[in-house]
């Protein structure tokens, strides 16, 4: 059963079609990868799903309900959380407050202050940041800021998590640690749609991969199908 469906999604920036007539669907519980060369429209697609941008045409449905044109906070409260390509944790805020914000505002029903605090602490333990909860977020390393952003996203109790290049800029050890986290989140029952350039990550953990090129979907399939697809190889390496 699809949790997220897009039909004929198109978005122009000036005269350039950043995303053009893309159809996609993600099933509940699935871990889907989104890849493509730079400028293919991957982040734009995420911005369209999460409400940062409004598509020129097409509809996006979450749990069979149309969410196109809704404000980002409404989409978040419906159960779609995201992280950003350039990490956007609140730098001057303590680590704990970063997560608390997500659990206080990001849910369909507002939790009590005690519940929000308890669950925030639990999530910080899950991502391994319990030792630094009072530090300002800006003092963390890149890998830890990414973990923090993940915890903030999870604090909104999402059904669907959009991860935009979680592994970019991390060293191999950190990449495998974050991959482990992603797999655990998936086993918690959260559907994951992730943009990734680190092929090791995407090939190992995704059930299915979608490939964008010049704003169009050029391929879709299991990791091995994608690895052998002629269209994909051409898009990356040229003809």
């Amino acid at each position, binding site marked *: 059963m699809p949790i997220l469906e897009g039909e004929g999604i198109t978005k122009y920036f000036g005269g350039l079609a950043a995303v053009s007539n893309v159809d996609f669907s993600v099933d509940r519980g699935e871990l889907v990868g989104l890849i493509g060369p730079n400028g293919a429209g991957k982040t734009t697609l995420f911005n369209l799903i*999460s*409400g*940062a941008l409004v598509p020129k045409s097409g509809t996006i449905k979450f749990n069979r309900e149309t969410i196109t044109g809704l*404000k*980002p*906070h409404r989409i*978040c*409260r419906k159960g779609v*959380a*995201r992280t*950003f390509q350039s990490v*956007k*944790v*609140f*730098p*001057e*805020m303590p680590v704990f*407050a970063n997560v*608390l*914000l*997500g659990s*206080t*505002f*990001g*849910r369909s029903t507002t939790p009590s*202050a005690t519940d929000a605090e308890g669950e925030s602490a639990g999530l910080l333990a899950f991502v391994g940041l319990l030792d630094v909860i009072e530090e300002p977020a800006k003092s963390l390393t890149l890998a830890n800021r990414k973990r923090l952003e993940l915890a*903030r*996203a999870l*604090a*909104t109790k999402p059904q669907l998590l959009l991860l935009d290049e979680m592994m970019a800029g991390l060293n191999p050890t950190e990449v495998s640690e974050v991959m482990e986290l992603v797999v655990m989140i998936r086993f918690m029952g959260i559907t994951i749609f992730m943009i990734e350039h680190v092929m090791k990550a995407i090939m190992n953990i995704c059930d299915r991969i979608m490939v964008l090129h010049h704003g169009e979907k050029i391929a879709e399939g299991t990791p091995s199908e994608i690895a052998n697809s002629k269209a994909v190889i051409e898009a990356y390496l040229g003809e």
Partner: protein
Amino acid sequence: MKISNLDIRKLWVPGSLLVILGLMSTLTLYASIYTVILITSILMYINLTVSWVIFSAPTRYISLAPAAFFGIGIYTSASLGTELPLVLVILIGALLSSCLALLIGALTLRLRGIYFTVFTFGLVELIKHLLLWYEIKFTGTRGRFVILVDNNTIYHTMLIILVVLLITAYLIRRSKYGLALWSIGEFEDAAAHSGVNVNALKTITFAVSASFMGATGAIMATRWTYVDPYIAFKAFYSFMVVLMAAFGGMGQLYGPVVGAAIFAYLEEVLITKFPYYYMLAFGLILLIVILFIPDGLAGVIDNWQEKRKGKQHANP
């Protein structure tokens, strides 16, 4: 020993606040008229600055609209003061200012950074000239007389507005909305994607902040007896408010209070002693603050306290 130490520390802040409030509310009984008038002006600046800080400090939207909201309050008083009781005039001043803020907020809070600042600056000029045009075209006069209220009443009203304002500011800071406003200042889109209704929160907070400026204007007008659009809508007030907040520091609630108090007193002294050069002195102080104490007085005190704490840990 330790327990009693803790208790005294806990009581120290609310206790001293109560003493200050007690002294201030009985000021008219023992102070000279000059002192009462001077402190009224100081309170006016504190009110404007603390109101400004409610919205602009956490969100980092630098608004130059205080003069507009203050002026709306002044003109409410000038046009309704003869017909309605003072309390009602003040409430209407607050209401009109917050309505304007809601409108402005809904229209312009999508603007960020310098665009928002320039717009709010333009707003003061726009209202000033609109009002001037209206007065000349329809009422045939440029200025208006404001009903006179005695100095003690003005002082007490100003003090009541300040107390309500400080309680409001404190509650907002401590609430979850304080956290959300802060997140908007740090990364607005991340706040939105974490479930914060950024536009509604910004607009409503802007309106709350404006209502206190309007109330302050409504009571202050009664001291000036005559106002015209040039007196009521002076961009100078907007700049003073930003300056006072920067000087006091916005990290703590007492920062803007102390900053406004010192600056307002300084204005009074400088304007009488160096009527031609006092603006120059303000400019110099602003430069020094921005260059050397960007976090203001409150920032300096915070740093000093942290250092002292650090020392205590080092030598137990």
